């Protein structure tokens, strides 16, 4: 600005309008009377992806209701409002207002994120559905043992001990399941926000490897990780990424125990449309059959219910991983062959 004091008043006016919009934390898009995008603020780009100037607004927001309200606003230069829900890749709900900007030929569309309130409602319903379904099995088993203990095995010292042992395992499984369900619900509930703050992925991986060294030692697994020479930076939420890595490394140690070795590597890749940071966790255990690979991130999907239960799996670990990565605009890729171990790779956008 100081460079160009002579900028005419109109330029300054448009500039300040953009600066104002850029500073607002809610998504805002300014468009002209033909419905063409003139400006999308950073919040809009973070919420809806790339929206270059010139994009037709109705092409980007295609639900029939949205089309109608934008068309009406364009035709009559009148404000309008509606609820807008995006289902994929993450469910998000917005309160949308379309407003003509007085004294100009421009309009703006403003999005207020309502996902949190909606998710709290959904979470209650989901939690009850999932919990009741998954808790029923251990609960049935416990009540079966109680019945036996009060009846036929009342005076059987040995049976009593082993039954109590089983009951304890079941209750701790239930407790873990509730923890995981809560943790998944918490992540789903938190509003979707990319902070853009870059953190050192290498450091996080190193600290996760360190924190699980105890578990690895108990299982007789060696974790090989060579921290990268330079910092590997990507925008991510530290706590959430830590949870992803803990879940994956714990799985690798538990399910790949027979391989006695887990390799963790960090790298950078530019194969996709944008540069990525990739973290691969490779185990040498029994591996995963091809037909299960696409499904393992589904909630409660179990390849082998018995093994999973023995290893204290709740069926939610990878669902949590996938959800966190989706929030980060990243993804999880899995490669495996039966008998040759499995490798789980996290892809995070580097920008």
């Amino acid at each position: 600005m100081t460079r160009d004091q002579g900028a005419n008043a109109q330029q300054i006016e448009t500039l300040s309008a953009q600066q104002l919009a850029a500073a607002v934390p809610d998504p805002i898009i300014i468009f002209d009377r033909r419905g063409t995008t003139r400006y999308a603020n950073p919040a809009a780009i973070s919420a809806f992806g790339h929206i270059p100037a010139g994009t037709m607004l109705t092409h980007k927001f295609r639900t029939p209701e949205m089309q109608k309200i934008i068309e009406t606003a364009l035709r009559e230069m009148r404000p309008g409002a509606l609820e807008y829900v995006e289902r994929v890749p993450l469910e998000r709900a917005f309160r949308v207002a379309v407003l003509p900007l007085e004294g100009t030929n421009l309009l703006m569309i403003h999005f207020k994120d309502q996902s949190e309130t909606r998710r709290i409602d959904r979470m209650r319903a989901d939690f009850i559905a999932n919990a009741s379904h998954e808790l029923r099995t251990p609960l049935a088993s416990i009540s079966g043992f109680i019945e036996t203990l009060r009846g036929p095995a009342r005076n059987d010292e040995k049976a009593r001990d082993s039954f109590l042992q089983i009951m304890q395992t079941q209750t701790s499984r239930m407790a873990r399941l509730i923890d995981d369900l809560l943790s998944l619900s918490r992540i789903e509930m938190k509003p979707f926000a990319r902070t853009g703050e870059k953190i050192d992925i290498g450091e996080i991986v190193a600290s996760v490897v360190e924190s699980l060294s105890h578990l690895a030692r108990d299982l007789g697994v060696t974790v090989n990780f060579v921290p990268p020479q330079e910092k590997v930076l990507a925008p991510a939420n530290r706590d959430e990424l830590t949870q992803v890595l803990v879940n994956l490394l714990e799985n690798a140690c538990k399910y790949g125990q027979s391989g006695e070795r887990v390799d963790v590597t960090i790298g950078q890749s530019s194969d996709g449309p944008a540069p990525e940071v990739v973290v691969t966790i490779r185990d040498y255990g029994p591996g995963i059959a091809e037909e299960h690979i696409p499904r393992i991130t589904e909630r409660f999907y179990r390849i082998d219910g018995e093994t999973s239960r023995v290893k204290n799996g709740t069926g939610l670990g990878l669902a949590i991983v996938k959800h966190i990565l989706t929030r980060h605009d990243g993804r999880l890729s899995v490669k495996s062959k039966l008998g040759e171990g499995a490798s789980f790779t996290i892809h995070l956008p580097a920008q």
Partner: protein
Amino acid sequence: MTSKHIVRAYDEELASLGNRIASMGGHAERMVEQSVAALINADAALARKVIADDAILDEGQRWIDDRAILLIARRQPMADDLREIIGTIRIAADLERVGDLGKSIAKRVVAVSDARQPIQLFRGLEALATLALTQLKQVLDVYASRSVEAISFMRDRDEEIDAMYTSLFRELLTYMMEDPRNISPCTHLLFCAKNIERIGDHATNIAETVYYVVTGEQLPPERPKEDKSHRVVLSADGDKA
């Protein structure tokens, strides 16, 4: 759209084709989303709505065909404009097919929900639908923003859908073998899964068309890919491997 023409009405006619594609896209996405929701929640009323909505897409495709042909005849478009118009015709045809597939899923809702099915029957289908819907949304977003860099990446997603479909195929066969009473709902669900997989294919077709419209070049030929469900065999002795 692209550069300005001397005749402003021509620009507007071109723009109206694009707008109609966007509105068809919105309806198609909605139909797929609602048909799967109807299936999972055994919601017959929603299913009827989806079936009725298909007419909107049929009408949209007819409208685009008529307008596009008129436009070609009257304006004799060249280069970019011609590609744009031909692209519109092709995308409209793909979207219309997506609508048909959504309708076909909706039609099966009553048959599947005759007896209440356990939820795990639907989990995989829901995940498959999410993949296909994400792909459809991404490709329509690219149509809006014209940023085709993301497209080659998108075709990889199609492989994910195929892998998921094959896995689902196997799972549904397992349920049928476990209990013959599952055969009727699972057969319907198999067709639904196939329809969703086809929706992914149409999204890929649209991606190729958009790439051609924007760049004037064809996407490099696709690597050979296939779903492997035609090779899935389960033996009756409980071997589910």
